[in-house]
């Protein structure tokens, strides 16, 4: 029911938005039109593509799960103060975004590979080494995607008015209930954005995955890896596979679109 007349800002926003949208839409349009649609249909039903699709879903949802499980506590902790320690941790968490993915993959291998301390322990306990396993694709995807989750959620937590938490405490709500019933619902936009960014990044990740998890059809070859493989022999197919990847995320985003409804 609120109306604001048109203003210079409105016009400028509209203009710049149009430019921005064009900037993003043109490349997408370009690959959509150049994709080999007829071949895609048949590819979609091929076993390797389906396997890759499945692995992609496993690794990206796994990454989101890990991100929420570990990233939420981390974000809570980071948002609590601005001590030097937290600054350092925040920087460490940001680094996977900056590092070239190959380097990130090497770092993962060095830290969790067979010949690393942790990796050796892991192999002793669980009987298999992390690299070249499906679990490794999840770890790689989480390593690359989680920073986005952590930083988004931290921003949300910092913007949260702590007086609502006080109110909840005064009503007898312990830390768990405060977290579940007040904090999480109130930082919903950031939480959602964090999950989205993490999911998208994990879904598209391949350099670090290839380095850390390898590239074996059926166990570690996710869709982006299949894409990279196809790029070597059949760039058109690679574009096609990328579009399958894109459709996957579009489907997820479309399902989630209603959760963007503003809170108030």
């Amino acid at each position: 029911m609120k109306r604001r007349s048109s203003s210079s800002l409105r016009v400028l926003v509209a203009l710049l938005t149009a430019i921005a949208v064009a900037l993003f839409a043109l490349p997408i349009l370009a690959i959509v039109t150049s994709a080999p649609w007829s071949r895609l249909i048949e590819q979609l039903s091929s076993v390797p593509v389906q396997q890759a699709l499945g692995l992609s879903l496993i690794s990206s949802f796994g990454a989101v799960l890990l991100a929420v499980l570990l990233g939420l506590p981390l974000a809570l902790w980071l948002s609590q103060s601005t001590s030097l320690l937290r600054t350092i941790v925040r920087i460490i968490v940001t680094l996977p975004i900056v590092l070239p993915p190959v380097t990130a993959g090497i770092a993962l291998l060095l830290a969790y590979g067979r010949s690393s301390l942790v990796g050796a322990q892991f192999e002793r306990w669980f009987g298999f080494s992390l690299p070249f396993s499906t679990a490794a694709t999840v770890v790689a995807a989480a390593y690359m995607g989680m920073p986005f989750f952590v930083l988004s959620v931290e921003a949300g937590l910092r913007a949260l008015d702590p007086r609502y938490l006080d109110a909840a405490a005064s009503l007898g709500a312990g830390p768990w209930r405060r977290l579940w019933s007040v904090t999480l619902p109130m930082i919903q936009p950031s939480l959602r954005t964090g999950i989205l960014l993490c999911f998208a990044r994990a879904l598209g990740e391949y350099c670090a995955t290839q380095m850390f998890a390898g590239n074996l059809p059926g166990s570690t070859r996710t869709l982006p890896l299949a894409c990279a493989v196809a790029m070597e022999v059949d760039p058109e197919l690679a574009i096609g596979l990328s579009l399958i990847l894109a459709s996957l995320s579009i489907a997820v985003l479309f399902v989630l679109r209603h959760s963007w409804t503003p809170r108030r």
Partner: protein
Amino acid sequence: MSLHLRFNLNRGPLQLKLDLAVNAGETLALVGPNGSGKTTCLHAAAGLISIDHGTILLNGAVLDDGTGNAFVPAEQRDIGIVFQEHRLFPHMSAQDNVAFGLRAHGIGRKAARLTAAAWLSRMGLGDFAAEKPHSLSGGQAQRVALARALAKAPRLLLLDEPLAAVDASARQDLRRDLATHLRAFAGPRIIVTHDAVDAFVLADRIAVLEGGRIVQTGTTEAISSNPRTRYVADLIGLNFFRGVVRDSALELKNGARLIVVSQHQGNAVATMHPRSVALFHEQPIGSPRNAWPAPIEALEPALDSVRVRIGGQAPLVAEVTAATVASMGLRPGLTIWVAIKATEVHVRPE
């Protein structure tokens, strides 16, 4: 069950230094000027801020001793608090807001929602149970906040201006309802208010907080018959002067003198009812021992009278009938004679 607050607490410019006890079944009205620390005091009692020194005891058990070790967090104190700014959860309906405290105490979802609905009806908000706070009016939000605090039947009740936004008509009902509820409630309760009527109707005892210190406590009668500061006098609508009694006259700081009847000599405060201030066009000849000319600053119509604000060296308020205003032609700017009988000036040593 009783609450003992005896602590120091510094927050920005405020230096709160308190020693206050509220007994089980007693309602204390905490009144005082803006920024005197009332809200801070309630928050300390609630466990939302911790004290610097001293102790907070509930029924003998330490809730906070300033060291952090004994600090009992808010959620374990079993309090009910109405915040001055409501603080309704914006993502929950009115009903869920009220049910929140019940749920936190382990009551099932269904039972909690039922109780919440009953409380909302009691507050006259039966139709608004499903509304989110942003679509409630100010007064409705405040009533939801009140319901939320009361519904969980806490051990300790802390109400920060719980009726400030409630309309005049509902306020009478709500005040009565609240009085009944408070009487039935076993624990200590503190109510912060700027409304003298609220304080008088709801409280057994009044504590006046000014600049972080308790300057006066007492029953409503004691306070209203013997206000010790200008704030209290203003609260109950009396004229107030502070000065030194010498030779049966109260000398004010600015040199003005009021003839009084008092055995006491030295520092004292004096009050008089606005109705005991008489106004004349000419210098009055007769019994009033105090009389001086002063300009009228403002006329404030009250219900069945008019309050005449008078300036000059001893500013005060006179209460006259509307008929008097008309017949005397009182108006701002006019200089008139003020007359007060010495016996009407109540002097108390300070």
